[in-house]
């Protein structure tokens, strides 16, 4: 028998039963819950007179709709408030592990899960949120689901799934200084396209990935969904082990030893066969900046905005022209000449402590440019915020003219008050540059935290390698 891939191991170890047509009932270990995609599921459960199968699997918190205004007491928008209160009520009525507003552990669900040790290697992890792929950084099978599936997991602890194909993406060569996991994943998406991973689970491997911290690996897996893959994975190693040790939900004592012994098997075996393999020379990468309305529309900071006239494929050409029109950009403009109005450092892609440190290192001793109307830093969780404050990062940001906010999804999707106005251009560390994502008519350029910080200082995109 050839070696197994990590994905095979994770999937196979959770099969409760399988059908002859290849669909399987798989068991779910961890169910993360937030306020936007859960109310209809809780309601469905109640209407059917069902109880959650395993309450202990659930960890809930509001994040999408919560204000980020320092010291806020309540949500002013009545519709958002109702949604958060609905989660409060459901979580309390069912006695779930719950981090409400005011709890320092609350934050973006994909930052908090790993931070608490609620995400562990070998688990199946789901959440009604496409960026659940983030947790795959821990050698866990993690993927986003819809609300009907949220209800299905609540009621049965299982999901009906068909095995995905496997795609190995090997990043050979260490990332150069100033080039981060975000740049790597953007470059990968630029290469394989936003549908490149459709129907696949991606395993990220190679020297560059092994050298990444858990924060960097989470950034990578976070955007697997932007490459079309429901799940991203990174094999277990000492970096994973060191990150998990001592976290509140992590196993202790004898259980820790047992768990680690098992976790060490969570790697693709030598000789494991993947359906596809893509290799990328990561030692030659430069910082990346998206120019369009899909994450695959990306170039390096040294490049220019591409020219649709040079694109042979008609659908792509029209897509490019439409994107340039929406983005208010002219073909062949150097990326470094694009001026910005706002900076957003945050989101489940890049709001962890390492991200904030990288941004602060660029900002230290400098000032936000005059043409930048708003530069904001939104930590991924209350604990990230506290850690950053203990390191004095908040002071560095504030002194430079950045706003220092309360944790949440914030301007990543602009469900709360943090948003772009029509026509405003933003250097953003989030994951989606779709039309209207950060506010109707808003223009998003996806970049790394260091690149976002640098753009805030310069007032336009700039090669961060020249600042650090």
């Amino acid at each position: 028998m050839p070696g197994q891939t990590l994905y095979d191991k994770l999937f196979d170890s959770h099969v409760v039963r399988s059908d002859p047509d290849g669909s399987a009932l798989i068991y779910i270990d961890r169910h993360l819950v937030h306020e936007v995609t859960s109310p209809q599921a809780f309601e469905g459960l109640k209407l059917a007179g069902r109880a959650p199968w395993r309450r202990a699997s659930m960890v809930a918190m509001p994040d999408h709709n919560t204000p980020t205004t320092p010291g806020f007491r309540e949500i002013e928008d009545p519709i958002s408030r109702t949604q958060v209160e609905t989660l409060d009520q459901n979580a309390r009525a069912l006695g779930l592990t719950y981090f409400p507003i005011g709890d320092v552990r609350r934050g973006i669900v994909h930052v908090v899960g790993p931070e608490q040790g609620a995400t562990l290697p070998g688990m199946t992890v789901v959440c009604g949120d496409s960026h659940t792929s983030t947790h795959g950084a821990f050698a866990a099978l993690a993927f986003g689901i819809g609300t009907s599936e949220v209800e299905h997991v609540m009621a049965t602890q299982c999901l009906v799934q068909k095995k995905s194909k496997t795609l190995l993406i090997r990043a050979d060569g260490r990332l150069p200084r100033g080039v981060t996991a975000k740049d790597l994943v953007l470059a990968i998406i630029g290469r394989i396209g936003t549908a490149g991973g459709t129907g696949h689970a991606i395993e990220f491997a190679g020297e560059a990935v092994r050298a990444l911290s858990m924060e960097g690996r989470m950034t990578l897996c976070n955007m697997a969904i932007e490459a079309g893959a429901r799940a991203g994975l990174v094999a277990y190693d000492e970096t994973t082990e060191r990150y998990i040790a001592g976290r509140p939900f992590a196993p202790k004592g004898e259980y820790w030893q047992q768990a680690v012994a098992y976790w060490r098997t969570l790697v693709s075996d030598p000789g494991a066969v993947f359906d596809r393999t893509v290799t990328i020379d990561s030692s030659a990468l430069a910082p990346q900046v998206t120019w369009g309305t899909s994450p695959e529309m990306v170039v390096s900071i040294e490049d220019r905005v591409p020219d649709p006239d040079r694109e042979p494929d008609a659908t792509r050409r029209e897509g490019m022209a439409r994107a340039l029109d929406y983005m208010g950009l002219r073909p062949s403009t150097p990326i470094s000449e694009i001026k910005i109005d706002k900076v957003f450092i945050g989101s489940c892609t890049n709001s962890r402590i390492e991200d904030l440190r990288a941004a602060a290192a660029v900002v230290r001793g400098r000032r936000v440019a005059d043409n930048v109307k708003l530069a904001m830093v939104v930590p991924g969780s209350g604990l990230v915020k506290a850690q950053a404050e203990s390191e004095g990062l908040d002071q560095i940001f504030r002194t430079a003219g950045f706003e220092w906010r309360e944790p949440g999804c914030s301007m990543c999707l602009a469900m709360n008050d943090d948003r772009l106005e029509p026509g405003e251009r933003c250097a953003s560390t989030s994951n989606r540059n779709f039309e209207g994502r950060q506010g109707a008519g808003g223009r998003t350029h996806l970049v790394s935290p260091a690149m976002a910080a640098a753009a805030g200082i310069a007032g336009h995109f700039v090669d961060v390698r020249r600042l650090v």
Partner: protein
Amino acid sequence: MEPFTVHTGLVAPLDRANVDTDAIIPKQFLKSIKRTGYGENCFDEWRYLDVGQPGMDNAARPRNPDFVLNQPRYAGASILLARQNFGCGSSREHAPWALLQYGFRVVLAPSFGDIFHSNALNNGLLALRLPDPVIDRLFADCAAFPGFRLTVDLAAQTVSTTDGAVVASFDVEPSRKDRLLHGWDDIALTLKHADAIRDFEAQHFAARPWLVA
């Protein structure tokens, strides 16, 4: 879920690739805690000229005459013809809810976002993958023949024109097909295997006690 057997309807073409779920239903409408009321805000940013907010009287809002679904010839369309990677992005099930509540029962595209695809089928919205050349031809037919209609027969797994000519056949897993044809409650089906789930759980936790410690 409403059963899906055979559906015949007017086809509307949405000729752009990578239509994401943010475009299908923008986030401000996700604040609702209900399952209904999304149809009027389906494709909101493309469909109206102003910025939509929950609670607006949508009938009074200015429509974008250039948006394909606003053209009179596509009024009442129930089959959406789309390009590659339709429904990519956010996992919001509000997207299939919005499409269904708008009046669509079928989406035809060369590829779909994976999560959207399961969400659609879980709600009885038939998201069908057809080969690129077939999709290209359907776009051409749709443009050439006003009132172009198709029939989708789930039992036979075919898409045909109204004169009965089969345009394409499609794949669907047998178990999924059964559930769609009968409109079965997925949870009730899974709970028939409750004993198997309990058995699995016992073994799983015995081998990995730290998961329950």
